[in-house]
């Protein structure tokens, strides 16, 4: 009997870990894209996630324009459409603020402009959090879908042990994977993708090749924002959120991106997947209040144990 419960708990944690992990993976890709292409340290990525959640919320609930889609399809369409909305927001943010402390302006300076980027994005993060509080209020909200309380049952696999696959998360997971693959195709096989990769590789040379590097960066920042926002919209279907949710997730995102190796899109996905997996499995042994603390500990461990892959300046040219 005890064994059956244990097996059931473990299997369900694994299932939840993989589905949530894929969504985290998508979320991390957004941050990984921005760092990988622009070398910008974006502290406000968590708030972009939050914006994705609210964008989806306002699209599909209450009097939103997509409310007619109903509670089954709507939340997922809303999540996907949060992408382009936040893309525009991100691109504007880059044009107005980020571009002033990054890109060709800071290339070759002593710290590549990271100090300025940290401060400016921390400022953006504070404004979005607290501005969000003003606009959206502090009540925890969620994009309701009946699917969140329905599950596919697999089993019983051992005795009475059954695996439950939450339908909302399963669909969200599928959308996340499709989005990630779509982004990969975009980067790999289109002119735009080539330009982005060239701008990432060597901005100065890319400029000489006629690539508008600032525009490429703007698009990259928008893409990174939009991708994370889609992940946010997907997460909004199964958890409740408030304007301050970004703080928890910015740490998760950096854990994933660092784990996967900075700058690699695929790595960011695997990193996010792993972190989500670990987080869900930690639910087996930790009380719920400590799960978030566990994420920070995991983050610190990841950052401490893999420092060589982390700061590109370790092999600084003397």
């Amino acid at each position, binding site marked *: 009997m005890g064994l059956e419960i244990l097996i059931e708990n473990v299997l369900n944690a694994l299932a939840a870990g993989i589905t949530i992990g894929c969504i985290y993976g998508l979320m991390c890709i957004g941050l990984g894209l921005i760092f990988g292409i622009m070398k910008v*340290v974006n*502290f406000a990525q968590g708030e972009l996630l939050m914006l994705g959640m609210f964008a989806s919320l306002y699209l599909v609930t209450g009097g939103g324009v997509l409310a007619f889609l109903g509670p089954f399809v709507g939340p997922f369409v809303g999540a996907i459409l949060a992408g382009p909305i936040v893309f525009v927001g991100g691109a504007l943010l880059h044009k107005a*603020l980020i571009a*002033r*402390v990054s890109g060709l302006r800071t290339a070759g300076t*002593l*710290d590549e402009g*990271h*100090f*300025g*980027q*940290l*401060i*400016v994005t*921390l*400022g*953006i*993060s*504070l*404004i*979005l*959090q*607290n*501005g*969000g*509080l*003003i606009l959206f209020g*502090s009540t925890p909200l969620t994009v309701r879908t009946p699917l969140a309380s329905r599950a596919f049952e697999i089993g019983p696999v051992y005795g009475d042990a059954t695996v439950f696959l939450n339908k909302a998360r399963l669909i969200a997971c599928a959308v996340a994977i499709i989005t990630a693959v779509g982004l990969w195709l975009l980067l790999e096989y289109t002119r735009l993708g080539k330009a982005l990769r060239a701008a990432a590789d060597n901005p100065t040379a890319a400029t000489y090749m006629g690539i508008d590097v600032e525009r490429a960066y703007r698009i990259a920042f928008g893409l990174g924002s939009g991708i994370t926002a889609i992940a946010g919209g997907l997460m909004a279907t199964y958890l409740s959120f408030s*304007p*301050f949710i970004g*703080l*928890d997730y910015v*740490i998760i995102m*950096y854990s994933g991106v*660092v784990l996967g190796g900075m700058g690699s899109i695929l790595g960011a996905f695997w990193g996010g997947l792993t972190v989500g997996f670990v987080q869900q499995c930690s639910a087996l042994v930790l*009380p719920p*209040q*400590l799960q*978030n*603390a566990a994420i*920070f*500990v995991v*983050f*610190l461990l990841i*950052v*401490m144990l893999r*420092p060589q892959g*982390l*700061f590109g*300046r*370790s*092999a*600084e*040219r*003397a």
Partner: protein
Amino acid sequence: MRQGAAPRLRRDLIALAVLSAAYLAATLFVTNSYYQLILTLVPIWAVFGVGWNILSGYGGQLSFGHASFFGIGAYVTTLALVYWDLTPWLGIPLGMIVGGVAAILIGMPTFRLRGHYFALSMLAYPLAILYVLQYLGFQEVSLPMHRENPAAYLEFTDPRLYTVVAVGLLIAGIVACMLVENSRFGLALLAIRQNELAAEAAGLNSWLWKMRAITASGVIAAAAGGLYACVLLVVTPDSVFGMLVSAQAVVVTLFGGVAAVWGPVIGAAILVPLASTLNAELGNILPGIQGVVYGAAMIGIMLAAPEGLFWTVRDAVRQRRTPAAAPRPQPAPPSQVRAAPPPPATARPARLHADRPLLVVENLSRAFGGLRAVSQVSFSVNAGEILGIIGPNGAGKTTLFNLLNGVLSADEGRAELDGVSLRGRKVHQVARLGVGRTFQVVRAFPRLPLRDNVIVAAYGAGLSDAAAIAASEAALAKVGLSAQADLPAGQLTNKQLRLMELARALAGQPRLLLLDETLAGLGRDECEDVLDVLARLRDEGMTIVIIEHTMHAMMRIADRFVVLDHGRVLASGLPRQVVEDRSVIEAYLGKKWLAKQEA
């Protein structure tokens, strides 16, 4: 005490006394309890900013998680009062001790990281503590009231007395910061912030200085947190460990002035009343207004005046004054360089026997992936000679230096200075053994005056204050830069910068100098001046290894050559022999050229 610190310190102390007196006098006339609270909070947040400034301003280690220390101070003070009935007069010092210990525990692993990883990791600590406290059930802890003898428990019926205590704490914090700023501690931090590798090469153990900085920083932040709890009489994890708390330290200091004693004070005096007033007036309709104001202040100051108000205003004032009052000292004419006074008698390394090599390098190798950047390199340097290392671009010359002075670790081989192995030593340890180094791209501390740039290395060598001042003066005189000693390094010409780096290396009392393309980017005349300085150093018994491209200069100065190509030693010997070596000509000019010559 640093050179020239005394007048500045006296001026700052007078300003501190006058400002504190004026602030307290103004406090007497405020009767509205809300404004009284703001008057108390300004110095508290300023203290917090002062603490942050030591680590992140002077030391440049950006921390987004200083709420850890603030919150620890607040919670230790509160819990000690609640559970042990310990008066905050002792509880706050206890909190400071715990804060300092926490800073050491946090610093030890986290200083393995740099830049944004450090900043981000620091953020994780307060958030993790926040969740743990919530889990432990300390959501909201009130400080109990003491009706009898309240002052003994830091409780006052007249709220203005809280302001007095807060100002007292701020004075202590500012004095502590002044002591840091005007000692070798502050100079070490400024040097590390501006160029960590150069600081290491000057003999500073940057890890140790950073640990000291975070400890001092944590102690001060904990003091601010402890008093904050006493003033507000209730603590919650969010109010002392939250993101806004960490942001507060960042924003008041950035806004007021990074790495300036007065920065956090100016920032707090402007931003705290502004944000509090807005919060009081508009908090009901716009609940997050305080955070928005802080965020906007951060972005605005970063884009408009990235060093903060203090420096921007000071630079503006100085610029207006400079043309009239004190024209900038002109760079010394070349003749002055040649006529540099003989070096004063400082401890100079005794000249070794010329038949005994000072530096022995054997089979030193280092690969980056598949690229063998330095491969089986062997040579030796006799005491008192100048060895020139030449070779085409990418030959591994700089990598060789990096292996010798600890920037990189060798895969195999041996490198010994006077019988002591250099392998496995950190950069600052190699420097302390007596290896001075200059860099291919000058690594100055641009904001520091020339004399401070140089004295860093004297401190790095472990000299006392007086000896360090003497050593740096002597080094500056040797390279002929005494007249420019007060100029910020950022204003020097290329030649002066090269000579400055040389002086810095000399101030560290080296036995061996490693000079990486010291002549790069210099005109012919400038080259001659630097070569003269080098020749004079050799005549005084200095041993020098120099990397150089220009064959002409090398022929003039070097006693022997080592030629590197593709990481290997191609040839070595007397200059004349080496330049006539077939393989050397081939490496430099190509096979075709050689064939044409022979045809």
